């Protein structure tokens, strides 16, 4: 990662990023740019370097911010009409920590509204194009951030991952993406989707850059009671002998043969790098999607309750009394996918259905976590695809919500278990579309995954 110093000017790094952003405007990575403020900040850093003052570990590094992180620079939209003019009065902890180390936000990236979707087509501002093939989707929900990194506009970008929203777009665009252990990075100041699986992470072109950014962001935050004490170290651990389990349940039916080929090739590379790879079956994983699409909509319905037109954000002009204030505002402000999840969520939480759906799903979630625990007694790392297929065409799945939800089948089990999971470039299909391999481990072993990925890449 290029960091500003006596030779490299922060202003140049930022200008270059802004120029590239302009050059790739057609891809629609960004919802809004932070040009003036970014250059001003870069100047300040250059002045401090010139004076010989100490600057941060990310001094002058331009980055892109998924537009569901709050910060007073510009407006935070979450790609929703509900918030399309919402100036945040506070700064998300993750953003604050990056900025304290000198990183410079150049723009806010596109996403599925409220981070709900797997293609970035659910954005109020229109979709983002895939970096490898502009006729295809970026993946989602953190599509804008993934494409901004894949196109080389920025060296890293922030995303959020609730059920695959970092890993799947990373896979679709051929870059690295991490969903760390739940609680590694504070959720304070990030528009909530599903609280029990919302996880803050990032995209970059290599494992070392991911490691640096995560090291800066990770650690306890008094404003988020679910954050963990900092376990992240500044250096990646040395590559050691590890046993890898290739999940057979995700390598068969319903998975694109090209994806299977790429992941198998990645498994071969791992062997070449000295790792033991064996096959493992975890039948419980196939229930992950069903569990997720009960727990997550319930939390979504709850978390989106606050958007009522009373205090901030959209207030429908059609409102004439209290009921219509709620109804019209929420009708106009939410995308159809948001509304679908609110309906599902309220259904599974309603009295008479709670036990049959929500409670049962939570029990199954406990079984799923147990299944992971048992698997990690046999192997150190699990390997599987990120998604069943490479990036699809625009509109291909928008009319079929279930097909869209199937995109998440291989990424939600890790979210439900709160375990770290990374997406690493595994290869390309014969149509030249990137395919990622997914590595996951038990909680707290995030850096082991990065060191393995790095080692495999070096030995390739």
């Amino acid at each position, binding site marked *: 990662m290029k960091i500003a110093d006596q030779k490299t000017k922060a202003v140049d790094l930022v200008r270059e990023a802004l120029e590239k952003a302009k050059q790739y405007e057609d891809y629609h990575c960004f919802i809004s740019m932070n040009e003036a403020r970014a250059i001003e900040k870069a100047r300040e850093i250059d002045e401090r370097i010139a004076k010989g003052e100490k600057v941060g570990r990310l001094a002058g590094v331009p980055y892109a911010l998924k537009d569901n992180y709050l910060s007073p620079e510009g407006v935070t939209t*979450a790609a929703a009409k509900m918030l399309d003019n919402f100036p945040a009065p506070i700064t998300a902890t993750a953003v604050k920590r990056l900025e304290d180390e000198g990183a410079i936000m150049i723009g806010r990236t596109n996403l599925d509204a409220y981070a709900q979707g797997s293609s970035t087509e659910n954005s109020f501002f229109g979709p983002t194009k895939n970096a490898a093939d502009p006729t295809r989707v970026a993946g989602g929900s953190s599509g804008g951030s993934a494409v901004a990194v894949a196109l080389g506009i920025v060296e890293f970008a922030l995303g959020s991952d609730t059920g695959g929203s970092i890993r799947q777009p990373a896979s679709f665009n051929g870059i690295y993406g991490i969903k760390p252990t739940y609680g590694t990075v504070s959720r304070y100041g990030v528009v909530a989707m599903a609280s*029990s699986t919302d996880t803050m992470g990032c995209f970059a072109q290599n494992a070392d850059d991911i490691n640096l950014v995560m090291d800066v962001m990770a650690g306890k935050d008094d404003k988020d009671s*679910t954050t963990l004490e900092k376990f992240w170290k500044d250096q990646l651990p040395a590559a050691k002998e590890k046993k890898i389990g290739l999940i057979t349940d995700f390598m068969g039916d319903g998975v694109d043969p090209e994806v299977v080929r790429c992941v198998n090739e990645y498994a071969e590379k791992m062997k070449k790098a000295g790792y033991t790879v064996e096959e493992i079956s975890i039948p419980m994983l196939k229930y992950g999607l069903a569990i997720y699409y009960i727990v997550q909509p319930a939390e979504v319905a*709850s978390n989106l309750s606050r958007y009522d037109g009373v205090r901030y954000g959209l207030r429908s002009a059609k409102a004439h009394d*209290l009921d219509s204030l709620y109804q019209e505002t929420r009708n106009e402000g939410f995308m159809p996918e948001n509304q679908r999840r609110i309906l599902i969520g309220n259904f599974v939480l309603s009295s008479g259905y709670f036990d049959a759906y929500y409670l049962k799903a939570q029990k199954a979630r406990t079984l799923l976590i147990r299944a992971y625990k048992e698997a990690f007694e046999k192997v150190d790392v699990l390997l599987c695809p990120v998604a069943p297929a490479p990036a699809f065409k625009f509109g291909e799945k928008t009319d079929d919500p279930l097909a869209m939800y199937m995109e998440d089948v291989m990424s939600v089990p890790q979210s439900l278990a709160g375990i770290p999971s990374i997406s690493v470039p595994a290869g390309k299909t014969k149509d030249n579309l990137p395919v990622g391999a997914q590595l996951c481990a038990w909680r707290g072993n995030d850096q082991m995954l990065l060191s393995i990925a790095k080692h495999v890449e070096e030995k390739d």
Partner: protein
Amino acid sequence: MNDYKMTIGIECHVQLNTKTKLFSGVDNDATDKEPNSCVSPVDYALPGMLPVLNKAAVDKAIQAGLAMNCKINLISRFDRKHYYYPDLPKGYQISQLYQPIIGAGVVYLPDGSSVKIEHAHLEEDAGKLSHFDGYSLVDLNRAGTPLIEIVSMPDIHSAAQARLYCEELHRLMIYAGVTNGDLYQGNMRFDVNISISKTDKLGTRAEIKNLNSFRSVERAIEYEYARQKALLEKGESVKQETRGWSDATGKTSPQRSKEEAQDYRYMPEPDVPPIVLEQSYVDEIAKQLPMMPESYRSIFGVLSLDNNEREAILNHPILAQRLAEACDKNSALAPRIAHWFSGILLAEENADKNFALGTADELLELSEMVENKELSSTAGKEVFLEMYDKKNTSKRPHALAKEMNLLQENDVDALGAMIDEVLALPECAKASEDIRNGEMKAIGFLVGQVMKRSQGKANPATVNELIKQKLTQ
């Protein structure tokens, strides 16, 4: 014909007097503050805001639970209770449905009965709406104030008992120090569930919500009993519904029926980790808890106070504490102190609760002076009031009595001289004559004259004896 039996259960909301709110770290005391001035982004429910539990509220909840003889659950969790209203910024209230912090317990009432507590849980208060012509305003100062909701078993069977229960809860919460207890400010609010039946099978209940005084609890129940009875006697049935009470009309009226009842879509709160307590931590809080009214009642048993007197004193923990200390040191001298206390409480508009009472030793000293006839009982009360009213606590009672010139004259020589002067008065000649002739009832007049001359300081018994000696020997 048997009359209808009433069955009543009460839910009581108590606002905890923590420094900051339950989840936001913002000032919890909005008294005399501008609307929406005690509000943070968390209270305002901005996107991305997360609740952070205030540990002080947990401690207060434990104190409150122990005051009601409740089991404290070592693991408790929060849940979200969803409904839409402009005074509820998040669209849900963070409460405890499944695993509350306070388990079963019992509250003993002054009449000897008791009411079992089902459970009590921690939750956050909502804001306040003010309605105007064509618009409403929201004030979120109160949003996020910690509450405990105390849920009783349906153990109450009369309006009077319900009132006693509410009063006792109020006392317990004040003793435990968990609330300011100002009912007028809504620090404690009561929801009453009431049904009536002639058989053992419970009748259909109505809930009367948001009662904010003991009197309205009592009146609303009396009204509701009459209303339900009238319905049943007409052959109609009671509807399960929520009703509101109006102090002005003295009536309850329907607010929401069972069919319109909200589905709160409860869900475990994922943003707040469970409260996990060590038993030793709870024990430590228990150790620091002051004595509760029920214990005082048993201590005060030896004083043979009447109930009103005793309960009036119990309403003020500081008085109860002093009296118990005095009782402990000298129970023979304590009843007089109790009378002084109840005197000031019952007689005057003593809103001022900042009693400056002096120590138990000083109060006992004063009581002993009356006992030893150094002070008349009237003078004793005067000295007490001087100590209380004027907060004149820098002097010991004896010095104070002396300064107030109230010490009783017991000196036989001095009194003898004073009696001689009185007997020499022409208006006393007739009475003196009567006594010499054996008509002793005239002595009262003479004693009164001497008392007057001594400005009340003479010991009347001594005077009586001396006059008798002088006139009959």
